[in-house]
């Protein structure tokens, strides 16, 4: 019993790291632009494919290619924003939802056409390695690496937001667009920047997912929904809230998977149930300040 | 008509309105002035049910408004305009005002009657020639007039105006002042928040000065501009300059 609880804690922590990675980019972009990017899951998917092809044809470890993949993601996200969303920023919110939803569909199905629905994955040695803390408590090495990277990314992001000139401008825009614009901050440029940064987080997450999950063109949607649940749990515009949300979701899923009969099937639904419950019970999330009438 | 008794509203620890009481008689025009952050818009939000007061009571013709939703309060005969105008951008001016006429009372109103009422309201504010324009295509002055017409179409007994003059040009101000005067003459009770002292002097029967959510002074417009406390804390500068 004790070891079961301990295993649940370990698994929840590790899964929470993975979930943090999935959600932090979405949360950053939303915090600044107030647009939910329904294509975020598919951006993660492209990161995974990029890492896969780097691994297979150039024999580059995903942890190494992660850097290039992140840079490509930043450029891609920036361009995507400039070409599409930038033109409809003043339109009603429905247009932005439909647009990013459509972008996601395009990205996903270009991937289907290019690479078919076959499952792939990168296979660095650590992907299959595990440590046994005791006889029946296992730590998957791949997830531990993801956890470590998640911590590093979040710390870097928070530091950047806090101490860099651009980061502070980003926070200013996120807190009050009108005032930020009066202070001489180019709000639209900050939007594009945050979108690029968000995509860069997305593709980097994809590179990490490439050795944790099977890579398919359809991997984006479940990731997107989980990221939704997480940032709504955590309160949308708060990075720290996102981290908390990620660990809450991970804990709930892991616990249900272990404790409830047929739990693994039900665990898939936890994100949806949590999402609905949180939206109803506490619409501002745990640490959020955003009213839900956006 | 309207009795405000000991009303307080706090946001977190900050008091936006504290222990405010005043009366509004039928047919009266009350001007509310005060510096930014004095709680003027909060007061309107409390009366119209957008926010609930922490304490006190708000009585309309003896009926408690606390706890009612904005649409219920509207049906009791209270209408308002918003400081930041909110015309329905995708609807024509006429449809905007029709919406005000159709749903504002518990009684069923036929579409023809509503159209007639909309026409009268638009005529009163001088916007009849723009009736087929989209709400989003109006100038800021026209949008203010549209809000006023929409509020009038609800056949309100009590009209709350939140800085209808801000952003208007001189001639537009005169036009809207004429419109408000006509409304007041038709027997509607008006509570207006206004920055322009000239407008208050011309229209208000009585003035309430708010500062930090409290009543600083109540009196006739002439008393108010002569009152040293008011000059000190709100106006803070010679009146001649403000009036222009």
């Amino acid at each position, binding site marked *: 019993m004790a070891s079961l609880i301990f295993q649940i804690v370990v698994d929840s922590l590790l899964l929470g790291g993975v979930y943090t990675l999935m959600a932090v980019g979405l949360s950053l972009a939303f915090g600044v632009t107030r647009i939910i990017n329904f294509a975020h899951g598919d951006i993660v998917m492209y990161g995974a494919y990029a890492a896969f092809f780097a691994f297979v044809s150039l024999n580059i470890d995903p942890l190494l290619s992660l850097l290039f993949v992140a840079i490509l993601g930043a450029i891609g996200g920036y361009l995507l924003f400039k070409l599409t969303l930038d033109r*409809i920023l003043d339109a009603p919110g429905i247009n932005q939802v439909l647009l990013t939803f*459509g972008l996601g*569909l395009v990205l996903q199905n270009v991937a289907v056409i290019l690479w078919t629905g076959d499952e792939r994955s990168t296979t660095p040695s650590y992907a299959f390695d595990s440590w046994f803390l005791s006889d029946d408590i296992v730590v998957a090495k791949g997830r531990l690496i993801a956890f470590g990277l998640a911590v590093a990314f979040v710390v870097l992001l928070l530091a950047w937001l806090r101490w860099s000139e651009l980061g502070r401008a980003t926070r200013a825009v996120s807190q009050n667009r009108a005032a930020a614009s009066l202070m001489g901050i180019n709000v639209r440029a900050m939007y594009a920047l945050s979108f690029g940064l968000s995509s860069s987080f997305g593709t980097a997450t994809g590179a990490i997912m490439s050795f944790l999950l099977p890579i398919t063109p359809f991997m984006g949607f479940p990731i997107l929904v989980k990221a*939704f649940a997480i940032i709504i749990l955590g309160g949308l515009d708060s990075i720290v809230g996102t981290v908390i949300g990620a660990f809450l979701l991970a804990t709930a899923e892991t616990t249900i998977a272990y404790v409830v009969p047929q739990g693994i099937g039900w665990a898939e639904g936890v994100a949806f*149930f949590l999402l609905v419950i949180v939206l109803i019970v506490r619409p501002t999330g745990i640490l959020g300040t955003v009213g839900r009438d956006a | 008509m309207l009795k405000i008794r000991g009303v307080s509203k706090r946001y977190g620890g900050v008091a936006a309105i504290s222990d405010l009481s005043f009366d509004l008689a039928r047919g009266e025009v009350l001007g509310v002035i005060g510096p930014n952050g004095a709680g003027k818009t909060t007061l309107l939000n409390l009366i119209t049910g957008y926010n609930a007061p922490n304490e006190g009571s708000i009585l309309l013709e003896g009926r408690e408004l606390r706890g009612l939703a904005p649409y219920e309060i509207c049906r009791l005969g209270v209408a308002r305009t918003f400081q930041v105008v909110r015309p329905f951008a995708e609807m024509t001016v006429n449809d905007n005002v029709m919406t005000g006429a159709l749903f504002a009372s518990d009684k069923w109103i036929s579409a023809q009657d509503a159209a007639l009422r909309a026409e009268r309201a638009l005529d009163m504010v001088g916007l009849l020639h723009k009736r087929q324009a989209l709400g989003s295509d109006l100038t800021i002055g026209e949008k203010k007039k549209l809000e006023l017409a929409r509020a009038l179409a609800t056949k309100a007994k009590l009209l709350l105006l939140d800085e209808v003059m801000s952003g208007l040009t001189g001639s537009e101000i005169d036009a809207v002042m004429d419109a408000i005067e006509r409304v007041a003459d038709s027997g509607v009770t008006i509570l207006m928040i206004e920055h322009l002292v000239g407008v208050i002097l011309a229209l208000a029967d009585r003035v309430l000065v708010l500062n930090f959510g409290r009543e600083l002074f109540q009196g006739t417009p002439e008393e108010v501009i002569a009152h040293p406390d008011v000059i000190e804390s709100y106006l803070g500068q010679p009146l001649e300059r403000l009036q222009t």
Partner: protein
Amino acid sequence: MIAVRGWIIILGSLVVALVAPHFLPPGFSDWLTRLSTLILVAASWNMMANAGLISLGHSGFWGLGAYSAALLANAFHIPFWLSIVPAMLLGAFFGACLAYITGRLRGLFFAIATLATSEALRVVALMVPKLTGGAEGVFVFDQIRPDRITMTSFSLCLAVATVATSYFLSRSRYQYALRAMRDSESAVQMLGVNPARFRIGVTALSGAIASCAGVITAWFTGYIDPGSAFDLKITISAQIAPLFGGLYTVTGPVVGSIAILALSELTRLYFNYSGGVGLLVYGCILVFGVLMMPSGLVGLWKRRRKPVVTDAAVPARAK
């Protein structure tokens, strides 16, 4: 006068719906059945969008309709036309609950809540095999399935009824409140409109109609499983058809449904090897529709005929 013309068009369409399937080749009448289901979800989605409610959960209504019809038919052997009734009631009830519990949620958050609810329903359908057959799905008893012609007529009639409903709704006094809600639920309250009532009403109506589409599909294909009944593609086509045809208009969803069905048939003809192309086209329609053609095909047609569009049904950004 216009109302009379409306009635004539509706009655004429009903007659066509009843007669035409007798004379059409089987392939074409299957196509019409699918078109009808598409019109049902598209028009019902459009009704909610018209009130400012973006639904990403229409596959949830569809699935509820499909499952309730199939399970009730198998349990009580009720005929297919009767199975519409409980399915619509369930769809309406679910829609009303959804609108009630999502209460204050606006735009984006409402959309996410609907998406989550419909996905949650899919998980439930998958995980409660005792009721739903789980991943193996449900077969509708063959003996009680109607023939193809009846099926086609019936679905066409439902489509006509749906379009008629949205036509009358768009001409009614409620349209003033619904359109105003789309702009600002907060401001419309000060005009005496209770947004909660309208939002519950329109979501219930939309849910009832969308669940009909599920009922038709359950009877038409004779088999449903969680994956197909709660397929996200349903939600996608529900929003693409109105957007393509003309958002917030009565004819838009119909024109859009015909257009995207034709498109998907074409892509199937030319790219039959891959399922990706059809959805890719849908995605492109969404992206380009939002960016370049906000008032849809109907809007293009109107603009061609009269230079100044003053129709309030055209989104603000059209100007």
